[in-house]
């Protein structure tokens, strides 16, 4: 073939041809509309390191603000082969397998407590994981024989979640954080983990976080055992929980 081979060690954006480096931008500058604004937008992208910058659209946005759409070329490359992303589970089991393994391998029921903590009232996500109904045809954990679910709902203070988890002797606490404005999710999640530590529960219960901007990595960083994002199905979470509990069980045995 008479085209360059893709070198995954030196990856660049692909517009219309390999390594052309093309990226699309849109942004606002707080400068009045006009030729100077356009030039300013162009030079700004150049300042950020882009070449061949083209401001393809500029519009007046009220007084003193201008909106831009642009294309430019990025020249740096990145080594794709070196990227490793930690994942909560290697393999996802289906509901049937999970229920079977709970009974046979774990040999006891699992107690799960879930909530949208602190200021967050977006329950749809955690409901999708926990409630009978589930999401997109995937039934929630309530429907799993062998899992006992307590869904505490919206805007539950961390203190309450932890107290409740203690009361029911929970194996796992699931918390959901959807709102991320001003990084409020980081603050809330950190508070939760600190309280849990204060209660000396940190090593006793599994902690799982979820939400559209939660990555597994972020969750680990903040002290959780796992994090789940957009597109999570109940079985993803159940698999992680079961695998962790089975591992604990085996670790104890040894």
């Amino acid at each position: 073939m008479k085209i360059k081979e893709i070198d995954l060690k030196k990856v660049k954006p692909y517009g219309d041809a390999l390594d052309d480096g093309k990226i699309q931008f849109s942004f606002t500058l707080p400068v009045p509309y006009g030729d100077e604004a356009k030039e300013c937008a162009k030079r700004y992208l150049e300042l950020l390191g882009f070449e061949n910058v083209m401001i393809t659209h500029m519009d007046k946005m009220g007084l003193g603000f201008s909106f831009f759409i642009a294309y430019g070329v990025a020249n740096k490359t990145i080594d794709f082969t070196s990227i490793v992303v930690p994942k909560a589970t290697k393999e996802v089991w289906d509901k049937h397998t999970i229920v079977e393994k709970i009974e046979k391998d774990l040999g006891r029921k699992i107690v799960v407590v879930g909530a949208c903590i602190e200021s967050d009232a977006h329950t749809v996500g955690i409901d999708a994981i926990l409630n009978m109904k589930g999401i997109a045809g995937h039934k929630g954990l309530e429907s799993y024989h062998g899992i006992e679910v307590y869904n505490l709902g919206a805007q539950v203070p961390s203190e309450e979640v932890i107290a409740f988890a203690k009361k029911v002797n929970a194996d796992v606490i699931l918390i959901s954080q959807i709102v991320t404005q001003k990084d409020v999710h980081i603050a809330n999640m950190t508070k939760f983990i600190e309280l849990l530590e204060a209660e000396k529960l940190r090593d006793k219960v599994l902690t799982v976080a979820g939400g559209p901007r939660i990555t597994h990595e972020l969750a680990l960083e903040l002290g959780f055992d796992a994090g789940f994002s957009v597109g999570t199905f109940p079985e993803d979470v159940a698999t992680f929980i079961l695998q962790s509990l089975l591992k604990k069980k085996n670790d104890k045995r040894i």
Partner: protein
Amino acid sequence: MKINSVKSKLDLDKKIIDESRDYAKEIVEDVQKFIDLRSTSSVERAVLRLFGVEWYSEEQQLPYVNIIVDKLINDNLISRGSTYYLVNGLLRTGLPLKEFCDNIVSGKISFKSIEPLDFEVVKKKAMDMALSSSEKIEQNVVKRNQMIKDYGEGQPPYLYLIVATGNIYEDVVQAQNAARSGADIIAVIRSTAQSLLDYVPHGATTEGFGGTYATQENFRIMRNALDEVSKEVGKYIRLVNYCSGLCMPEIAALGALERLDVMLNDSMYGILFRDINMQRTFVDQYFSRMINSFAEIVINTGEDNYLTTSDAFEKAHTVLASELINEQFALKAYMPQRLMGLGHAFEIDPDIENQFLYELAQAQMIKEIFPNSPLKYMPPTKFMTGNIFRGHVQDALFNAVSIMSGQTIHLLGMLTEAIHTPFMMDRHLSLENAKMVFKTMRNISDEIEFKKDGIISNRAKKVLNDAHNLLKEITKKGLMESISEGIFADIKRSLDGGKGFNGVFIKDDNYLNPFEKIFIEKLKMRNPQFS
């Protein structure tokens, strides 16, 4: 507010509509009996605010109205209402309003210590005072109408945009720029926590959470800013805030005093989505709506919210049923149809084949059932994703349905809905999208007819039938019982559960609320349908 007229195309059965409306009426009359016997702490605070008690105690970190009403509660005086004791005090002490309130708040004077005058004497004075307060509100109505006359206004679907920076001054920058880009209506989204506060924060605020606090001063600042930009763009720009939560009636009072034009106000939203006590909400919404109506403020109901927790395709009929109930509640509060911005939304999963046809059926059906109400149409939110390009197309489809079915208040969909609260540029693009679709399809609603017994027409009939059945069922059980069974939004709430229940009280025989009387009287005169 202008309301487009759209010709009937769905061949809906008038009998089923009428029956459904009758059921809703029956349902609401049942609740109204309950309401008529009660008042709440926030109603009483609203009354005080209408009298002009707008001060704040830095020391106690609470508004005067809260401190005063709390004292009445603690003194077990509340069942007569706040008016009696306020006016009685003013008459007895001869102090000006501010000074009298200062004394009550500081504890220098206690209500109990003031000897009660004859009820009729107090009532007379109260009516006089209330009349002069009402005139202020009436002047706002006159002023609004004059400005609309002078500057003109947009044309429906009115383009409605939100600002939500948390800082009222930053909101002003963004709101004015949105108006310059073509918005007709600006809503200042409230800080999340606010609806559950049992007081209205005070003064200009610059820190909010996912929104900006609704305060009287913030209302004023934004109203001035919009008046300024109205002049600049040659079009009256309407202002919206949230008349919801534990302080619903107070916010209604503030909105009336500060010339807001539209307020989110629902007879059940607080119950379902904020877990506010049912009794509290029903009582609060009654007085709130009366104030809204008196101030000629268009309300927006919150049925769109149902579709964020239940499925928009399966539960479409709950939206209609709820709208019929909201309508009846509003009528009970002497609000004419032209002020009822009943809410609905474009929330069916776009992965359902023919989704557009179902959305169109729903929107057109609602328009045909409420032809004289300035319907509030909400954009897709739940099925928006981080793919802003796809989102922009979803919004374009929503815009198309809106203009095809003659919606009135058109909340703009944001391509970044699933990502962040809107950037200034998101608003700009979203306005451009809607303006373009509306212009290019300007007369489409008049041009297009629907096949008899086609997908669109059958879907509308089905939804209407389902709503009819649901309302019939509710009639049997009663609304409160039905809500406790999770009839709306898949959410269950009990009669005594939820926040704010302790603010509800049974009115005394000598209970006095002069505003209620004045508003009812004047609303009857203004709207012949109520006399």
